[in-house]
């Protein structure tokens, strides 16, 4: 029964991801888009963790860790580019 609840959680988070995608497409400034992409990255990490426990594949958690790391580095890079206009 808990497996089905975890799958339902993943489905709800996926729908929320599509709502965030609307803000990423329509956001008036670049920082709106960066914020929205950051939230989508966090949601993806949580969805990967949920899928890992539903299907009993523990190595997916490593994928989630690496995804969180890459998402953080990408956000920092884009923010630096927005601030300085160049990556130095």
């Amino acid at each position, binding site marked *: 029964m808990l497996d089905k609840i975890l799958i339902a959680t993943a489905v709800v988070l996926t729908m929320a991801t599509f709502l965030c995608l609307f803000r990423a497409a329509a956001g008036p400034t670049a*920082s709106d888009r*960066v914020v929205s992409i*950051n939230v989508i990255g966090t949601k993806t990490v949580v969805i990967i963790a949920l899928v890992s426990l539903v299907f009993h594949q523990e190595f997916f958690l490593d994928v989630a860790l690496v995804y969180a790391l890459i998402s953080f580095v990408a956000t920092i890079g884009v*923010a630096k580019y927005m601030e300085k206009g160049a990556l130095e």
Partner: protein
Amino acid sequence: MAVLVIPVLAAGIFFFLIGVIGLLRLPDAYSRMHATTKCDTLGAGLILFALMLYAGFTPAGFKLLLLIVFIWLTNPTAAHVIARAAYRSNDVPFCEGSFSLDRTEGGGRQ
């Protein structure tokens, strides 16, 4: 176990949905950031904590703990860096009716 896991999962989904509603409805980039950081820390933290309860004392539970610690370290940092970049790049407008209390030189550009 389900008695513990389901309420924590529900609270996590609640905070995620609140964050998404804030991201869609709030007027400018700074207030959207304010909404989404709650969704990042509390929503992701609570859902991963529920998964940790579900996994128990296993290597998977330890990895989930690592994931929670990492998300709690990085997401506020990322939000801070985005907000600072948006403020300093001078092309992200504030919403109507907002004013600044920053009296230093270069602050209070509104």
